[in-house]
Each structure stands twice: as C-alpha cells, then as structure tokens.
C-alpha cells in the first residue's frame, strides 16, 4: 500500500484538485500575467505597442500617486493595529471569560454586521456621521457643539469605518489562538509571581502570536484593498490607492497605468506582510495554519 500509487488514485487526486487549480490558474495567475504584460507596454501608435517602464516612471514622477500610495499603506497599518488593540480584549473575553450561551451570543454579535452588505453598513455610518446626521445632532442637543459639525470626510472617519469592517477577521483567529491557551499556564505564571502585565507579555502574547499575525495579515490585506469604505466615508479627500486604480481603469481608460498601479499595490502588500512576519519572528506556514 505504501509503494507506487495506483493510477486510479492519482486520477481521483487530480479530479479533486481540479477546481482549485482551475480557480488559481484562470482567475488569479492568468489575469496577473496579463496585467504584468499590460503594465510593461506603451502605446506608440494606434495598435502599436512596445515594452516600456513609462507607467512606473509616471508613478514616481507624479507626487500625488506615490503620496497616495504611502498614505494608503500608513493608514492601513494604523487601521490594522487599532483593530488588533480593540479586538484583543473582545477575543480574550470570548475565549476565556464568557461561558456557554454568553460565548455564542458574543460571537453572533460580532457576526451580525456581516449579514448586511458592506455598502449598507457604510451607508449606516454616513447616516450617523453626516452633518445632518444622528451624532452631530446629539452633540448639539447635549450642548457640546453650537452648530452641527461634519464628521464625515476625515481620516479618523475612514479609520473608524475600516476598523469596524475588519473586526470579525481579527476576532476569529484571536479567539481560536487564545482558546488553545491552557488556563493552567496562566495560573502557573501567576503562582510563580507573575503580574497581569508580565503574564500578558511572557505567556499570552507569545502563545497567541501566530493568531495575532494571521488576523493582522487578513485585516491589513482587506484594508489595503478596500475601495468602498474609504471612498464613501472619506469622500474626495480619501486619497486611497485603490481609487487611483479604479480611476485609471474606468475613468481614464488607461489600462496600462492601472495595471502598473495594481502591481505596485501587490508588491506593497507582499512587502509589508513579509516585513511584519520578519520583525515578529513568525513563520508564514505557522501563521496560515491558524487562520
């Protein structure tokens, strides 16, 4: 049985893997090859193209583009860190404090916002935060502000929206990482003289590190590639890199430039995830097993 596999088994394996291979090939690899080719050519005459780095040169020469690029990366990192800081206590509560029904109820509460579409959720934020919305009205009624203030179209608003959208994707891997932490380890550390803070640093965080990294990678990627939330909550000032890509493809019909931007975003997210794993000393394989 251990030796040469029968041809039937090989065929079965191939058939089982076929959907995944087709999906990877047709929807991910092929379009990316096409995009790569597209981003590296320039139109010299109608229907005449030649290899060129002009698109990438434009990105560097035009400050707006790379400003947006850096800004998107920075905001995404801030959003990821904020999500982690907010989600950690929630995940801790779900994994270690809540029991039985309370536990499932908390999980459902995290899940419920995802029953409606992202658009509707974001519009909900707009209803709350716009100048004539619920929150500015409340501020006025409470006498905090004299006139209604516009709470939309700030960077902070974008961050609020991004954190809200990402929360579940951070909570789930954190809960599973924290649930696998044996309570007696915490008790043992406490028994040996550890304080709350040192136990968190020496025991809990090292144990949950793969879960933290997994959640952070997912949230970072989702945030970096998010289009709707920054556009709706940030308005014209949002300056999100996905908007630039959209503009190139849809508004300007400059597919070559859009493809170059798309590739730059891919490189950016790969680089930051790699750097993050490097800095925290995590293995990509370990982390992915936690998701």
């Amino acid at each position, binding site marked *: 049985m251990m030796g040469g596999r029968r041809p039937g088994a090989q065929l079965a394996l191939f058939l089982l893997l076929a959907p995944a291979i087709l999906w990877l090939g047709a929807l991910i690899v092929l379009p990316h090859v096409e995009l790569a080719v597209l981003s590296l050519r320039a139109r010299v005459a109608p229907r005449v193209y030649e290899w060129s780095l002009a698109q990438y040169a434009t990105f560097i020469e035009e400050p707006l583009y790379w400003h947006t690029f850096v800004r998107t990366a920075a905001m995404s990192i801030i959003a990821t860190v904020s999500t982690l800081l907010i989600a950690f206590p929630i995940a801790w509560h779900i994994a270690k404090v809540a029991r039985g029904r309370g536990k499932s109820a908390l999980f459902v509460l995290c899940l419920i916002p995802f029953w409606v579409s992202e658009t509707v959720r974001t519009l909900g934020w707009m209803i709350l935060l716009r100048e004539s919305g619920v929150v500015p009205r409340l501020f006025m009624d409470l006498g905090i502000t004299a006139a209604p203030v516009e709470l939309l179209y700030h960077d902070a608003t974008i961050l609020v929206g991004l954190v809200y959208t990402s929360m579940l994707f951070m909570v789930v891997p954190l809960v599973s990482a924290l649930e696998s932490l044996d309570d007696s380890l915490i008790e043992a550390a406490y028994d040996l003289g550890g304080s709350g803070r040192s136990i968190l640093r020496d025991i809990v965080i*090292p144990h949950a590190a793969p879960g933290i990294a997994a959640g952070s990678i997912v949230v970072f990627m989702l945030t970096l590639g998010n289009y709707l939330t920054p556009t709706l909550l940030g308005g014209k000032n949002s300056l999100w890199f996905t908007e630039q890509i959209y503009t190139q493809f849809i508004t300007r019909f400059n597919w070559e430039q859009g493809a170059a931007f798309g590739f730059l975003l891919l490189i950016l997210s790969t680089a930051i995830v790699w750097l993050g794993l490097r800095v925290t000393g995590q293995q990509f394989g370990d982390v992915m097993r936690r998701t």
Partner: protein
Amino acid sequence: MEQDLEVDRVSKRYGAHNAVDALSLGVSRGSFFSILGPSGCGKTTLLRMIAGFLAPDEGDIRIGGRSMRDVPPNRRPVHMVFQHLALFPMMTVGDNVGYGLSRRGVSRAETAARVEAMLKRVGLSGAQGKRIDQLSGGQKQRVAIARSLVLEPTLLLLDEPLGALDLKLREHMKIELKQLQADFGTTFVYITHDQSEALVLSDHVAVMNAGRFEQVGTPQELYYEPAAPFVAGFVGANNRVAGKAVGVDADAVEVETAGGLRVRARASGRVALGDAVEAFVRPEVVDIARDANELPRSAQRFSGHVTSLLFDGANSAVLVTEDTTRAEIRIALPQTGRLADLRVAETVAFGFDPHRAICFGRR
C-alpha cells in the same frame, strides 16, 4: 513541631453543595502530607484555596504562621505543581526555571547561576537551552518541581502530577519524588486519588470524602487502624461484610449478613447488639488452605470453592464463594507460592483471626 500550614475551619460552598466543609488541618515543617480522596471530594478545591486561586467562604489559612487572607497567589510563599505540569512551551527549560526569579527582580547573572544549581540538583544539568517538547515525561516533572523549588517556597503543593504518566514511569516517579522531598526538606502537600501514591510517599495522609476528612494519620494507621468505614473501604483492598450485630462481647462482634454468613471482628467504637454494622476483612488477613486442619486454631473456619483466580505476581488473589451462604470473598494467595497450583472450582477452607478484622457501627 512547627506548623508550615494551618487550615482553620475552612469552608467553601458552591450553591447548596459544600465542597469543603469546616475543615481543619495542620502540616508540620518538612513533612510530606497527602490528601487522598475520590474525585469530587473537594481536595482540588482545598488545594486551590491554599494556593490562593479560590477564597474560602469561612475560616482562615495560615502558611508559615502568617494568615493568607486577601493575599493573592503571586504573593504567597506557596508554589504549585499543576496536574499537567503547565510548563511554558514558549520558553526554554532554563527560562521556565528562571521565570519566578526574574519576576522577583533577581539579577540576570544570579538567576542563571541559581537555575544552573537547581537543574543540577534535580539531575538535569545543562538542560537550560532545551525546549520543553524535547523532554521526557519524567524530565518535565522534574523541571516543574525545579521551577517551584528554586523560589524556596515554605510549601509546595502538588496536584496529582503523576496522573498523566503511564504506570511504569509513575512507579519510578513516586520514588524520585520521595527522594526529592527528602533532599530539599521542603514541606510537600500532595493531592491524589491514588491510594498507593499516598501510602508510598507520605509521612501523613488525610483521607477526604464529601468535603471532610474521614481520618488523618500515618499510612500504617490508615491501613491497619481505619477510623471509619470509608477509610477501610478506600485505602487498600478490603472485603466488606454488611449486616447486623448478633453477638457482642468484650473481644469481638459477631456480624450476620442478610445471606446468613456469620463473621467475628473486633469493634471500632461502640457497637450494641442489633446494630446495623459493617465489617472489613483484608484479603491478606484471610488464611486459605486445601485442608481445614492446616488453618490456625484461633481462626473462624469456613469452607468454599474457588470461583476466579486473579493472578498478579506477588499480589495474586482468588475469589472464593462460601458454600452455605454463597458470599464471595477475596483472599490473597500466600507469597510462598504454596497454593500457586490452585484451580477454579477447587474446594478450599479459609478463616481469619477476628482481631485482624474490624467492625464499624453503621452511621
């Protein structure tokens, strides 16, 4: 003798259930004290109260003469070896042992020196850099004990640390644990449901049942002089004979079972004629022979036939059914190998000295 641990009328209730019921206890310095009881008897609750993870509803716990009321676990001079050891898998052996020292602010160089000395004492010299998953079960146990003892606690609590090991290693670790305790001279409080662990290891054993101590004494006292039917039934193997006292004299009580078997046993406490009683006869107390004349003269004599052979080397026994009442009794086989050729269905005579059996009035 100075007391390292005094538990003074401590109670802990969960709803209407008394997990620990007005329990008092003293453990003298340097001794090995075990709390033996079936699961659910409250022994873990008691241990967790001593460690400080639970607060007693009533009563006080004093360690080294100091009241532990409102002292959190990380400030008590008590450390605990957990049931599954709870070694930190994210740290090396050296960091595990040094954890408590560095929490106390001991300098890095001194921590390293003390960790090294401690690992040497438990026979793990040079294991500082190893990962926890590279250790064997016995080595893990030694690291867990070293991690606590390096802090020089007044009291070391052990919560069934041998429970997860296989039989062979458990036997080995029992001896090792006893030697470690003798070496260090630290007071050990050991919790177990395994009576052989408690008897082998301890200077004193408390037998616990339903939140109370049934008896506290040396292993020999528990075995030979059980103070309660629960102790007689729980510690060591025993034949239980329940019935009515049909004859009481200065020497012994005669017990008659519902099936009509009559046995004589010495009374523990007051037993009056007609009382419901339970007698206990240890398997090794009963003499067995093929011919009734081989039995000692003082023994009550019965005849029966063998229903099962329970061969277990030196602990071999047979189950014998008494001929007139069909009562079944477990009898240890003589270690000389005299009856090693006994067969099922063979007729045998058996009997025992009433002074070596014990009878309790039913409470």
